[in-house]
């Protein structure tokens, strides 16, 4: 019989005794694999849902968007000639007003073909177009319920938008092409395209988005159509989207969220790996006499290794399969529970690739973590195996096994990065995970050293407690590592979320203006300035001309041929806001070059965002060519400015020197800071005097942003809690495997005169201290991670938030004590005589 067959026979014999000792092993693997499989499947379900809904979200097969000016002339003719049907939609922000209230709305003007796909659901139901016609002296409007509440109106009431009056004819329940945006500025206000000119809001330079939604003939594919458009009008400045980019913002959001959730799942699997290692080690220790016997009768180390490795592989396979089944089924439940709260309908299903990835992660983790104790058992002489309590499997494995372990870790890291759609994040995740494990291991060593070196307490119980923390075979390292990873993640997530929320809720409001105003017409600026300056409590008014332009060339090279860093690609995707100024605004930070003379009248010169310039690979003296309303303007970069957009400071990436844009069609935008009491007056006054000017309340936007941060934080925290659950399972497993030892200890203690209270006190203190120390180590590591992420990845100010950290440390101590107690109190009830008899 060859080595493998014999190993297989031994493995089968050993497995006959069942999998009782492998419960923790199986749960750890199943939980980690299940989490990754569930997140992967759910992410695919959402992506598939997006794809399936793509035509609805686009409003057709293809959507073409232009900012500030409608698609007309040859461009529109081409669209119509290639399409089977075209529908025009116009969108903009506007103020809806009643005599007493006003609200910012998302105004949408639709033509008679809208919607090309899907249906609009209203209450009361009926034909959409009929609701929007001019009747009884007013145009019709269909609006979202939220507006009725904001303006305190009902269906049938009248509302003013710009210079036109609208009667609310129905409540909008579902709009097929409404994509949930990360930031919504107001409820939908849907009107007929014919009504829009009556509002007088359609002004040159106003912030208006014009869409042409296209239905294609059956033989034309969206990609061919888009390619053809690009060939005909390479510099049209429109944004064309096909089904693969139906909701790019939402797709990006889902991708990022699933990335972080996958990381949380991987962390749970990492903790599971520690549980797998502990379970394997304790299993092998329980098998010492078998292994020793096998070795005594001539079994080579390799045979022993193979026999037990085969067992572990079979068990891993079982654990992974359980995880895969869980991960495949959970999304069905998740989708059923939350489908009403999602902007799209996810398609729950079995996604083999997502499941396969989770299985590979599980198998690699299991194989990597079990190698060490298996290789130790292989090397340990039979004699030593009989003395494992004081000589736990402590030999170094052969180099080849260390090499395998190293390869396993490397492969896991490489796969995490390779399978991630955002490799930069994945790379950081791998680095942070490795650093965390190393720091926690060092933390465990520090705890053991501390317990060993602290002066011996007078009280015997405390001495016992401290000694138990560092004795041979102590569970300190595995508990610190398993619980520590979960606690580090929780604290890191809490501190990162806390810091971001603090930035949004406290820091930004201090620096940000109270209101932004858009679409101020040039002939309104004097009256506008005067009106605001007259309001007590309003201060720091900033107003600048604004127009849109698209960067088409960088140093004379078309942008699509320039290697631009991904983080600034947004700057060349469509139009950007432009302005011009004689002098720099207060607080401008110029980092290269210098600002122009106030009376500058030379060739086009710009001041540019330093971060975008870095992403473009340009500096002072280089040129950008901008297409402004169809005219190309090549301007030289005269200076670079550092702009922190997160402060919501009123700024522009591109500012022209005087002499270039003054004659271009333009509107003005403005910002003002205000005391809280002045805010309602500002809103009322501007709304009454200038019906066309939209007022954006920064506080509302911040509240919306805050909600999203909290929502994302809650999702990540919920998944990160899996890591803690995995840690608790490992903790419970570690305590359970040491139960026999605890029973024995307590029996011997009783023989020697220890009371039940003394024994319970010793156990409670031991677990309490271990939990407390683990909490402190986890807090230190988690705090360090959050500092590194906030300071170096997000480049924000980091603040220590003690409440969350203290709560987590105390919870860790409490939980560990509780689980430790539950796992050991029965040891006290054991009959002494059973354990002391000579048989």
């Amino acid at each position, binding site marked *: 019989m060859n080595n493998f067959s014999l190993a297989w026979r031994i493995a089968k014999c050993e497995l006959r005794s069942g999998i009782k000792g492998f419960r923790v092993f199986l749960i750890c693997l199943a939980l980690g694999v299940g989490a990754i499989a569930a997140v992967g499947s759910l992410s695919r379900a959402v992506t598939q849902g997006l794809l399936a809904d793509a035509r609805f979200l686009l409003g057709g097969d293809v959507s073409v968007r232009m900012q500030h000016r409608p698609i007309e002339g040859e461009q529109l003719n081409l669209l119509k000639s290639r399409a089977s049907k075209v529908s025009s939609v116009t969108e903009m922000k506007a103020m809806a007003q009643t005599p007493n209230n006003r609200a910012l709305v998302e105004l949408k003007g639709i033509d008679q073909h809208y919607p090309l796909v899907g249906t609009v659901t209203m209450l009361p139901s009926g034909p959409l177009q009929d609701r929007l016609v001019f009747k009884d002296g007013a145009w019709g409007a269909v609006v979202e319920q939220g507006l009725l509440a904001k303006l305190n109106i009902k269906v049938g009431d009248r509302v003013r938008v710009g210079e036109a009056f609208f009667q609310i004819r129905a409540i909008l329940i579902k709009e097929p092409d409404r994509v949930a945006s990360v930031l919504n500025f107001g409820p939908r206000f849907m009107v007929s395209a014919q009504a829009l000119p009556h509002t007088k809001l359609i002004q040159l330079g106003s912030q208006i988005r014009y869409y042409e939604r296209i239905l294609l003939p059956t033989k034309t594919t969206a990609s061919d159509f888009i390619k053809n458009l690009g060939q005909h009008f390479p510099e049209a400045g429109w944004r064309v989207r096909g089904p693969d980019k139906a909701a790019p913002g939402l797709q990006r959001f889902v991708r990022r969220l699933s990335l972080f959730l996958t990381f949380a799942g991987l962390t749970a699997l990492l903790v599971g790996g520690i549980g797998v290692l502990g379970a394997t080690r304790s299993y092998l220790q329980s098998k010492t006499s078998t292994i020793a016997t096998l070795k005594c009768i001539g079994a080579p180390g390799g045979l022993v290794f193979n026999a037990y490795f085969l067992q572990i592989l079979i068990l891993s396979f079982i654990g992974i399969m359980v995880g895969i089944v869980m991960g495949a089924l959970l999304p069905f439940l998740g989708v059923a529970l939350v489908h009403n709260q999602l902007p799209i309908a996810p398609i729950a299903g079995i996604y083999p690739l997502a499941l396969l990835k989770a299985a590979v992660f599980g198998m690699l983790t299991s194989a990597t973590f079990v190698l060490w104790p298996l290789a130790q058992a292989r090397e340990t002489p039979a004699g030593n195996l009989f003395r494992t309590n004081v000589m736990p499997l402590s030999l170094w494995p052969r180099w080849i096994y260390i090499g395998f372990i190293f390869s396993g870790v490397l492969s896991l890291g490489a796969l995490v990065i390779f399978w991630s759609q955002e490799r930069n994040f994945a790379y950081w995740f791998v680095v942070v995970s490795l650093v965390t494990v190393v720091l926690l291991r060092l933390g465990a060593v520090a705890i053991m050293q501390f317990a060993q070196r602290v002066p011996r307490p007078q009280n015997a119980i405390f001495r016992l407690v401290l*000694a138990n923390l560092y004795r*041979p075979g102590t569970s300190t390292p595995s508990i610190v590592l398993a619980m520590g990873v979960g606690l580090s993640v929780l604290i890191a997530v809490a501190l990162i979320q806390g810091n971001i929320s603090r930035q949004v809720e406290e820091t930004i409001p201090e620096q940000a203006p109270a209101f932004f105003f858009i679409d101020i017409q040039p002939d309104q600026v004097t009256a506008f300035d005067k009106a605001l300056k007259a309001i007590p409590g309003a201060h720091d008014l900033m107003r600048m001309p604004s127009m849109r332009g698209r960067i088409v060339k960088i140093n004379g090279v078309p942008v699509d041929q320039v290697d631009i860093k991904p983080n600034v690609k947004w700057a060349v995707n469509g139009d950007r806001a432009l302005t011009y100024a004689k002098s720099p605004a207060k607080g401008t930070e110029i980092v290269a070059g210098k600002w122009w003379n106030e009376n500058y009248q030379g060739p086009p010169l710009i001041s540019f965002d330093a971060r975008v310039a870095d992403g473009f690979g340009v500096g002072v003296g280089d040129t950008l060519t901008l297409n402004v309303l169809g005219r190309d303007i090549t301007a030289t970069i005269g200076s670079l400015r550092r702009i922190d957009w997160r402060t919501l400071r009123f700024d522009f990436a591109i500012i022209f020197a005087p002499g270039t844009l003054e004659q271009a069609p333009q509107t003005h935008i403005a910002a003002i800071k205000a005391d809280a009491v002045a805010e309602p007056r500002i809103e009322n006054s501007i709304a009454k005097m200038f019906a066309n000017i939209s007022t954006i309340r920064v506080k509302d936007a911040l509240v919306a942003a805050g909600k999203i941060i909290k929502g994302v934080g809650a999702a990540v925290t919920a998944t990160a809690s899996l890591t803690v659950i995995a840690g608790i399972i490992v903790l419970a497993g570690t305590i359970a495997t040491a139960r026999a030892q605890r029973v024995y200890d307590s029996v*011997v203690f*009783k023989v020697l*005169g220890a*009371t039940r209270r003394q024994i319970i006190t010793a156990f409670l203190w031991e677990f309490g201290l271990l939990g407390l120390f683990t909490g402190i180590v986890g807090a230190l590591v988690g705090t360090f991670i959050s500092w590194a992420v906030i300071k170096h990845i997000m480049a924000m100010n980091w603040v220590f938030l003690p409440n969350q950290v203290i709560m987590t440390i105390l919870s860790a101590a409490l939980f560990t004590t509780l689980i430790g107690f539950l796992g050991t109190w029965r040891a006290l009830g054991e009959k*002494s*005589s059973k354990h*002391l008899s*000579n048989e």
Partner: protein
Amino acid sequence: MTKANQTGAIELENLHLSLDSDAGQVDILRGINLTINRGETVGLVGPSGSGKTSLLMIVSGLERATSGSITVAGQNITQANEDALALFRRQHTGIVFQNFHLVPTMTALENVALPLEFAGKSHAFDAARDQLKAVGLDHRIEHYPGQLSGGEQQRVALARAFVTEPTLLLADEPTGNLDGKTGDHIMDLLFDLHSRKGTTLLLITHAPALAQRCERLLNMSDGHIISDELTA
């Protein structure tokens, strides 16, 4: 726990022990009456399953009798609760087992100091060190049980049993796991410590020679004491 008369170290009256098993009730001890005087050395012999260890467990308060009365060192422990029994053991008894029953994760010194530490004695480690020296293990005090030979482990167990200076020493086949020479050495040590401290000794053994070293010999069979005689 109540005070009884002061005459005997151990007084057992009509002691019964029955255990329930799948096969029905098993009577382990069937009406034991026994008095052992202070300072006496008593050998307890009998075939396996005769009830020797059960008797020792009851005397040490580690097992509860089904009926009867147990008075040890002047204290009636028949109805004592767990904590009172722990206190009783701490104050009056030292126990040595065949399997040593040392705490494997504690050094020899820590094992020996343990009962004194439970009793809250501040000199626990000094006393433990002295006791280990007395059994000839002062050079092994920081060793763990797994690093000691069987004889050395039993010497640690002896040191631990004597460190509290108990009035009663209970030994359950203390040489059962040792070779003859080591066993002899351990027994010399046991009797030496007994004679120096004046401890009452109840020794369970299968070895007739060992039993003969005791002043009195009890023979048990099927839960009864079938003979009680003085040795020559």
